[in-house]
């Protein structure tokens, strides 16, 4: 495999791109300069760190290390999905539920694929398992965050509708059906849009990466197709599980609507 090496000076050169954004921010008084600097440094630091972690992992490939890394990724994804849910319960309540929702979605998408489509040797082969699981975790995180954000907000703003249905003898599932449907549609839309525009608007990151590093495009494309389908499954499962948790948090065992206080 051959690819153009990025030397450190060249890498630093790319900081000029951030400088462009900072200059624009300053000129338009957006006040984003600090965020841009912090974001650029933090993003680079995180990636460099993960690069070393991966290097270490590839050199000492052991199932315990791979699983530990995936667990940390899952925890960070769940913590991100559970924070700043404006009308929802506190993050301590949402965090364990986000773990389950994101974890379930990722498992459903990852296990069958690595068992049947892209067989791994050994099963914990980090080169595949870590980056692909990362993509799944990230998509699940976005879906779960969207579900939490939206379902609690709409239960609050449409509480009178939900209660009117309960008062007519509806079950909590029936009473919240409209809000659940709207929430899941909104949460799945970005993934579905991704399916529809892939290749037309942007070449996906992993495929680009594979092609740049010398994989034949036709193989890179196949990988990408599998990943796209995985992303759909992840979004659907994680979204459904998160909605289930939200529903249980919104109603008592006696089918009473309880809006979380924050």
């Amino acid at each position, binding site marked *: 495999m051959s690819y153009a090496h990025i030397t450190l000076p060249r890498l630093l050169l790319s900081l000029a791109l951030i400088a462009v954004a900072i200059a624009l921010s300053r000129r338009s008084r957006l006040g984003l300069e600090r965020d841009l600097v912090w974001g650029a440094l933090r993003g680079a630091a995180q990636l460099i760190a993960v690069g070393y972690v991966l290097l270490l992992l590839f050199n000492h490939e052991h199932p315990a290390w791979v699983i530990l890394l995936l667990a940390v990724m899952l925890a960070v994804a769940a913590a991100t999905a559970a924070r700043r849910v404006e009308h929802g319960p506190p993050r301590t309540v949402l965090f364990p539920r986000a773990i389950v929702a994101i974890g379930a979605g990722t498992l459903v998408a990852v296990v069958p694929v690595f068992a049947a489509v892209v067989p791994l040797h050994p099963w914990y082969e980090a080169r595949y398992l870590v980056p692909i699981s990362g993509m799944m975790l990230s998509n699940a995180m976005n879906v779960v965050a969207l579900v939490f954000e939206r379902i609690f907000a709409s239960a609050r703003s449409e509480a*009178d509708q939900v209660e*009117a*249905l*309960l*008062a*007519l*003898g509806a*079950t909590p599932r029936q009473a919240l059906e409209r809000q659940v449907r709207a929430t899941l549609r909104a949460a799945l839309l970005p993934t579905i849009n991704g399916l529809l525009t892939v290749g037309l608007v942007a070449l996906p990151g992993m495929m680009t990466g594979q092609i740049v590093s010398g994989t034949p495009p036709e193989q890179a494309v196949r990988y990408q197709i599998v990943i796209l389908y995985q992303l759909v499954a992840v979004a659907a499962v994680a979204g459904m599980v998160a909605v289930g948790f939200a529903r249980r948090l919104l109603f008592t065992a*006696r089918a009473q609507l309880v809006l979380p206080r924050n």
Partner: protein
Amino acid sequence: MTSTLEARELVVVREDRRILDGASILVPPGEAVAIQGPSGSGKSTFARALATLLEPDAGAVLLGGLDAQRIAPTQFRTRVAFLAQQPAMFEGSVLRNLEAGPQVHGKSLGDVRASELIRAVGLDEPILQREARTLSGGEKQRVALARALANEPEVLLLDEPTAALDPDAGERIVALLRELRARGLSVVMVTHEEAHARALGGTLYRCERGRLAIDS
């Protein structure tokens, strides 16, 4: 067949305040009961607790002598219909709204029954096709009544049904409730308006500081 609805010593505490402090009521089958009291006296909380939409911290609600805890909420609320002060209209036509109750129970309403219901609340059939959310306050209140009646409840429980209406529309709603009672339904109406409470006929309870007492 209607059943007795009863509340025994309901207590509701919110943020260290006793909103209900041992409120009790007895609604015999086919009777009308008005609960009158100033705003903040706890009467709306009482209505919601009586409808099982809010869990009391102590006390019990009984229907036909059976603790509501032992009746499935879906069944209880089909038998005891609760109407909020400003009933929420569901998206779509008035007809769609009327169909909502039977639909959650896996039944269909039928056009004939829909017409009967809309006439029973003093409206004309053409309104069935109108968008429910565009109706006036009085019309919405009537549609909500018809929607509740579609479930064939035994008890109607209304929280301030006249509060958002002009005096004329309010009086017409009370007259309608009297009519429904005459047909055998039990009616419980919470109101801050003395005149409407008296106009309903039947027993009058006063609500003060979270407790209820019969007005003699």
